């Protein structure tokens, strides 16, 4: 029986408290960016969007007049349409080395941040409030996916009292009224950006950005079709961080489109040759809600020990359906606004957080059904309260409708001090044993 013994998970050194009063972008340049650039040739392409995003962070330092802060679920197309750079403070926590994240979370707690505060946002509380990040020209914020994000709006308001903010009230419903409400606000959002940046919106540029965005969604949709094949031709764990990061950060850019084209060609080639991931696929698993970001060897362990391939990540991946067949070169401002509203309302994670909990449940069912999952894993980032309240219902529906079990476990996506990779693996081990036995027919 496979077990945890002998598997080497990532190790950390928390013995020294790191100096957090440093230039975080420089830290990222000197650590993860270097590591991405030094990847071996056959897989280096995978990290390109992350490097593109890091380039944008660097650009922000040199062009303060272009810096627009954007919440991670606010569709980035709006910023690119205004020829500005989108700076997502929370994205730094996603990219930075774990030891820095932990030191920053501790610094936030010293400032009075609650212990349970989400590390994605909490990791940048001190840098924002102490003014260590590039000063924003404008701030786009929104109320999805959670209360953490709403309160983060006050962090920004308190930290930049002289910078007016634009806050998108994301609707609760998915109907046309919800789209219209969003579109109506985005119209004001463009006026706001024009006022704050002193630039005029160029309609052709907006068209091009939306065209890039539509193409990106079309490509990811095609890639996802390949991922449904058995065996799954894409070593998902390797590419996951890039795909989700790219969609959160770069939708609307030509760079993302070019990268997705490479990604699609790779998926197609692997599919046609019948190549799966790096290891033999025995089980297919969907991560419902979150997935550990701090240590990707968790996925290696699952694959090595159980042949359990993570085929989809419910909250990380763009959920958007292929966009309508639109001639973007002629589309009116109104049509583009509506499209942009749809992007916002369906943004990964925001979509499941802002509305009724059945959206979360139904999305879980959809992913598990379409990707032919043998099991779901609800790795509940312990600050995602709205989604935690949907866990039990999701578990019941997966069993009732698809006959598959779902493990519910507590994680912190970024902070291994809450639940370590080893602890996760020991929670998953008996579960995956049970799923294996079930699949082999020795257990009903």
């Amino acid at each position, binding site marked *: 029986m496979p077990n945890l013994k002998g598997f080497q998970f990532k190790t950390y050194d928390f013995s020294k408290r790191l100096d957090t009063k440093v230039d975080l972008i420089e830290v990222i340049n000197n650590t993860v960016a270097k590591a991405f650039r030094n990847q071996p040739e056959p897989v280096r392409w995978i990290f390109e969007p992350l490097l593109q995003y890091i380039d944008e962070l660097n650009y922000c330092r040199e062009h303060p007049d272009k810096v627009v802060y954007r919440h991670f679920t606010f569709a980035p197309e709006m910023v690119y349409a205004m020829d500005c750079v989108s700076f997502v403070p929370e994205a730094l926590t996603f990219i930075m080395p774990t030891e820095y994240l932990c030191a920053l979370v501790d610094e936030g707690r010293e400032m009075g941040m*609650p212990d349970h505060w989400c590390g994605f946002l909490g990791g940048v509380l001190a840098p924002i409030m102490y003014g260590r990040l590039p000063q924003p020209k404008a701030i786009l914020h929104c109320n999805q996916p959670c209360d953490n994000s*709403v309160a983060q709006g*006050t962090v920004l308001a308190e930290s930049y009292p002289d910078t007016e903010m634009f*806050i998108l009230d994301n609707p609760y419903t998915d109907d046309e009224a919800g789209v219209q409400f969003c579109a109506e606000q985005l119209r004001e959002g463009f006026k706001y950006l024009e006022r704050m940046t002193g630039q005029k919106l160029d309609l052709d540029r907006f068209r091009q950005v939306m065209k890039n965005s539509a193409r990106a969604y079309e490509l990811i949709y095609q890639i996802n079709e390949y991922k449904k094949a058995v065996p799954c031709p894409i070593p998902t764990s390797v590419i996951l961080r890039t795909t989700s990061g790219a969609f959160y950060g770069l939708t609307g850019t030509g760079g993302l489109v070019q990268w997705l084209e490479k990604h699609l060609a790779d998926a197609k080639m692997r599919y046609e040759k019948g190549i799966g991931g790096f290891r033999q696929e025995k089980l297919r698993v969907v991560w419902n809600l979150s997935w550990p970001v701090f240590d990707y060897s968790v996925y290696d362990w699952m694959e090595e020990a159980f042949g359990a391939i993570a085929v989809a990540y419910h909250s990380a991946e763009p959920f958007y359906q292929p966009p309508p067949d639109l001639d973007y070169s002629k589309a009116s401002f109104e049509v583009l606004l509506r499209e942009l509203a749809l992007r916002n309302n369906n943004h990964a994670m925001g979509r499941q957080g802002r509305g009724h909990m059945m959206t979360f449940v139904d999305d879980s069912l959809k992913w598990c059904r379409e990707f032919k999952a043998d099991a779901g894993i609800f790795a509940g980032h312990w600050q995602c309260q709205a989604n935690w309240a949907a866990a039990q219902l999701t578990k019941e529906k997966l069993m009732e409708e698809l006959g598959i079990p779902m493990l519910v476990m507590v994680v912190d996506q970024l902070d291994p001090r809450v639940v370590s990779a080893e602890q996760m693996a020991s929670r998953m081990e008996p579960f995956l044993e049970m799923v294996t036995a079930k699949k082999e027919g020795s257990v009903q």
Partner: protein
Amino acid sequence: MKALDTLIQYGQSNPSAAVQEWKAAGGKVLGYWCSYIPIELIYAAGALPYRVRGAGATGTDQADHDMSPVCNCSFPRAVLDLAHRGVYDFLDGIIGMNECDHGRRAFELWVERLHPPYHHFVYVPRTRKQASIRQYAVELEKLKASLEQHLGTEITPQALQESVSLCNENRALLKQLQEVFQEDHPPLTGTQRHHIVNASVSIPPETLNKLLRELLAEVKQMPRLDGQRVRVMIAGWVGDDTLVHRAIEDSGGLVVVDNCCFGARSYWDPINFDPLDPLGSLALSYLSRLGCPRMFATFGDRFAMLEQAARDYRVDGIVHTRLQFCDLHGLENVFLTRRKQQLEVPVSATLVLDYIGQDEGRVRTRMEAFIEQLGK
């Protein structure tokens, strides 16, 4: 029985005798989750608005099946638990909203698992911009239509105006009662006032107005509290629980004012009603009144109220509280710490609470120490 005793009794029971009488007379009662639901509309439709509370809950195990205690707030879990146990079977329906993630989900789970006879969700925007006020007015239009259909009634402009007047009178009388605490030796304790506020969200407005008027007359004759007490303000969130008030007052303090939701925020500002734009004016007024942290970037409003009230009520110290896992009130501590110097009175380290008071010993020790520190 004196008005004070009656109101305290109503505040302590869930549901109160006043609700039982209303039901016995054939009246409908609709539960609602949060103070952003305009009770005026419910009352104008002929039903009694009843703010759901956790009073009487002894545990949360039934709710915990769905709402994990890993990270979900104990207040909505307590409310949901009571619903599971049938305590809320007297409700003829329930109205939910997106106050916080916990409350929103608890409402959805109530509907999903318990199938109340009527339910309606109101989407309440979190900003005060024009588009959001308009959207909220549209939501109120939907609530109105839904109530009319469910209750087989019509909410006329006149009925709505009367309802607003009644509820505004509730607020004004509660504020008058509040102002009694500006005296050096008021006749009531903060614990008593908190019970009265709890009663105010769950009895008919006419009954409340009558009792409050009687109480204000009684108060004039009542003996004043003696001794020198440390004057405390509670900021944050305590819900309908009185543990913190009792812990402070048993340690020699007096809670003279607060900025809580079950508290001053519910009566601080009147609703400005415009008969020419009934729902639009309700929307504007509800979104603009003294804000809860569910509203974006409104800490400044609460802070201004804190500063003013600390002066008006000659506060010696502020106790900052929140419930465990509350993000919205949680970050206020950071902002408060930052602006503390402006207040000129000490602010406690945040007192983190669980709604159901198993933790009484810790709360009492913390409050004793704080009062001692402020000691006159």
